[in-house]
């Protein structure tokens, strides 16, 4: 029997969504300040409108729907799924008013890409964009990368037990500290520390690359947001090509790696337990898969004759691999040249790396190393069971924070989500083929990149791309960020609203 949610449930959801919009409104005040300082008046009014609309909706829902009712898992899932959708719509308002997007869908694509830290862009004339608009795009990646729902609710001091459902619903299932609020604040502390260290390192690297001090600060802050939060937006259309600096590339690579580490592993490092990092299933899975993919990329580039010297081979190959694995999407090549100059094997290896992505409970996207590791362990477990006598008790363990026994439900959950990601990649690729303008290598590359929230583009995504495909990509980014469960819960909730049985009065 499916119970129809009542008005009280809807009010509860509206109350928490209002809180998220309040937070988004506050986020927009930062670029507003920059627009005023830079005397970018039209951008300033656009941010005022966006922030005001968020604050109005947030304040009204706060006043009208305030409640002390506890959140159930269903509420949490629905709130998170809707928060990312509605958040993207409201975040798109200042973007659309900037006049740099063809239509509202394009602005929403950009906002969803920013919040989900995908980093695909459809902005017109980025190289002449006002600095406040550019800063806003990067700031959205920071808000989204840290998990905007958990950020907002920990700021607005909702109780720990209430936040727990939202924390897990937002695809952050690793509780580092006993209390969810403390866990959220630890995530803040990590991000804050890296913000200071990363921006400072980038600032000096940019100074050494001949940037003036003000330009170095501007690029350093934006590059930090795009790199640590594994977003991949760039200040200039040329992405990382623009900097011509090995030092900048090294700092960005380190930030991307830091961003792809789970917050649990950051906690282990924080506590001086590096051994936990090296024993973790995700670290080992990423080490093995990255080695395989890097070998394939180097072999592919050598075989196709793209690079015949050691430095470009390693510098371009390694940076692109780290960018793909961390799901950042910074590029050291023009997207089109992956198709025209990189042969076949190297781009295929990049697709594989993008599909797997980074670690769970990090800012990275993709299937996640832990699921690939668990799926592989499951396969080994099944093979062992076949080979050993039937009476033998086969126990498989793995290390994830502590030694754990591989159980059926863990295997099922990992393989189900893995399968859903693969299906989504294929659906996106097929829809791309329907338009007839691209071949399978292009549509598959782009679909995996979008579905894993990576952002490396081979050229399919552009301001003029088919709108149906753009809408599909928006859906893929949303699904990929929330790892399906919250979205399915939302669909189930909508179904029960339409067809469920009323609760007893």
């Amino acid at each position, binding site marked *: 029997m499916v119970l129809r949610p009542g008005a009280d449930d809807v009010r509860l959801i509206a109350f928490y969504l209002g809180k998220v919009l309040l937070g988004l409104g506050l986020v927009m005040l930062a670029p507003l300040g920059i627009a005023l300082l830079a005397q970018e008046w039209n951008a300033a009014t656009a941010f005022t409108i966006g922030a005001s609309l968020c604050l109005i909706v947030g304040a009204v829902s706060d006043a009208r729907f305030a409640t002390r009712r506890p959140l159930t898992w269903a509420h949490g899932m629905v709130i998170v799924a809707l928060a990312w959708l509605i958040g993207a719509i409201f975040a798109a308002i200042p973007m659309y008013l900037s006049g740099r997007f063809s239509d509202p869908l394009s602005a929403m694509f950009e906002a969803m890409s920013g919040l989900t830290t995908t980093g695909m862009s459809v902005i017109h004339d980025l190289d002449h964009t006002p600095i406040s608009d550019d800063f806003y795009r990067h700031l959205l990646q920071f808000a989204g990368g840290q998990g905007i729902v958990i950020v907002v609710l920990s700021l607005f001091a909702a109780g720990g037990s209430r936040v727990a459902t939202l924390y897990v619903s937002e695809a952050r299932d690793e509780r580092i500290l006993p209390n969810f609020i403390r866990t959220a604040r630890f995530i803040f502390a990590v991000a804050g520390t890296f913000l200071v260290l990363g921006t400072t390192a980038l600032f000096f690297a940019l100074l050494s690359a001949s940037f003036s001090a003000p330009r170095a600060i501007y690029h350093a802050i934006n590059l930090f947001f795009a790199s640590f939060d594994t977003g991949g937006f760039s200040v200039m259309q040329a992405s990382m090509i623009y900097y011509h600096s*090995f030092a900048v590339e090294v700092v960005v690579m380190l930030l991307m790696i830091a961003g792809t580490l789970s917050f649990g592993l950051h906690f282990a490092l924080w506590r001086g337990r590096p051994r936990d990092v090296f024993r973790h299933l995700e670290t080992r899975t990423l080490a093995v898969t990255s080695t395989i993919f890097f070998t394939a990329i180097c072999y592919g580039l050598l075989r196709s004759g793209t690079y015949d010297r050691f430095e470009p081979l390693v510098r371009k190959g390694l940076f692109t691999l780290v960018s793909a694995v961390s799901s950042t999407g910074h590029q050291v090549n023009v997207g089109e*040249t992956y198709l025209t100059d990189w042969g076949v094997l190297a781009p295929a290896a990049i697709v594989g790396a993008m599909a797997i992505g980074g670690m769970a409970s990090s800012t990275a996207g993709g299937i996640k190393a832990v699921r690939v590791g668990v799926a592989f362990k499951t396969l080994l477990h099944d093979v062992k069971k076949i080979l050993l006598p039937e009476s033998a008790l086969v126990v498989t363990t793995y290390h994830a924070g502590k030694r754990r026994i591989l159980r059926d439900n863990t295997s099922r959950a990992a393989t189900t989500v893995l399968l859903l990601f693969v299906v989504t990649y294929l659906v996106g690729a097929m829809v791309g083929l329907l338009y007839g303008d691209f071949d399978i290598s292009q549509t598959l590359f782009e679909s995996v990149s979008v579905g894993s929230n990576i952002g490396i583009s081979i050229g399919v995504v552009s301001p003029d791309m088919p709108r149906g495909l753009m809408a599909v990509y928006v859906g893929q980014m949303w699904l990929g960020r929330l790892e399906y469960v919250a979205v399915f819960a939302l669909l189930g909730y909508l179904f029960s609203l339409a067809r469920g049985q009323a609760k007893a009065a």
Partner: protein
Amino acid sequence: MNASSSSPGDDRGRTSRRGSSPRRRGRTRWLLITPLVGLTIIIAGVVVLEAAAPLVDVTGRSVVDDLPSLILEDSPTCTRQSDDTTAEDIRGRFVPGGRVSSGQIFRCPAALDGMEVSYAGEVVGDILERSGGAWVQVNDDTYALEVGPLVGHRAQNGFNTGLTVWLPDGMHERIGGVGRPAQRGDVILVKGTLLRTDPEDGGGLTIRADEMEIIADTLTIENPLHVPQLIAAIVLALLATGAMIWSRIVARRL
């Protein structure tokens, strides 16, 4: 089991279970419809506001004259390893020293590797000085050569496209301005060697310039104030302040 599966004659059950149901259902429906209507109004309002943005007449101001014609009229695409003939064909058709676009180069980087080419575009961003010269990003998109930066007009022509150019000492100092918000930088015409994997740039695709000519000076585009947007911003900011105060008052009462 759903609501329609209860016995049609069970009026008493229906009244007790659904006694307040139509009203509650109505409230739920209202709570669902109101945000959708509100969201539609907001989106429509934003679209109308954006459409009301003031435009300035930029006709002809940003067009760069005296550009040499592109040597290749089309932009053939080749794929490394499988289309070697296309690359050779392009190389055969190209006249050394002729003008190319960045798009033509990206569609077949192997074709013109090591050849002397001419390239024209706007210097954007920063001039990154190094020992012996400077790296500059030179865009040859329509914002650079035809319509100017996307300010005060609606010629949305897609992404910026361009190439990295190495300007030796004595050349980059002559650049008077670079592309920034609402400013088109100097447009330069360079002649030099195209390197598909420049060892000095970690394997990047570059042009090493031997000659440079400035063919259009820096151009600043005025960005007119969007008055209706300003009025909307003031009204909404006042409403937001009022709403925030009201919500604080309500919260204190609870």
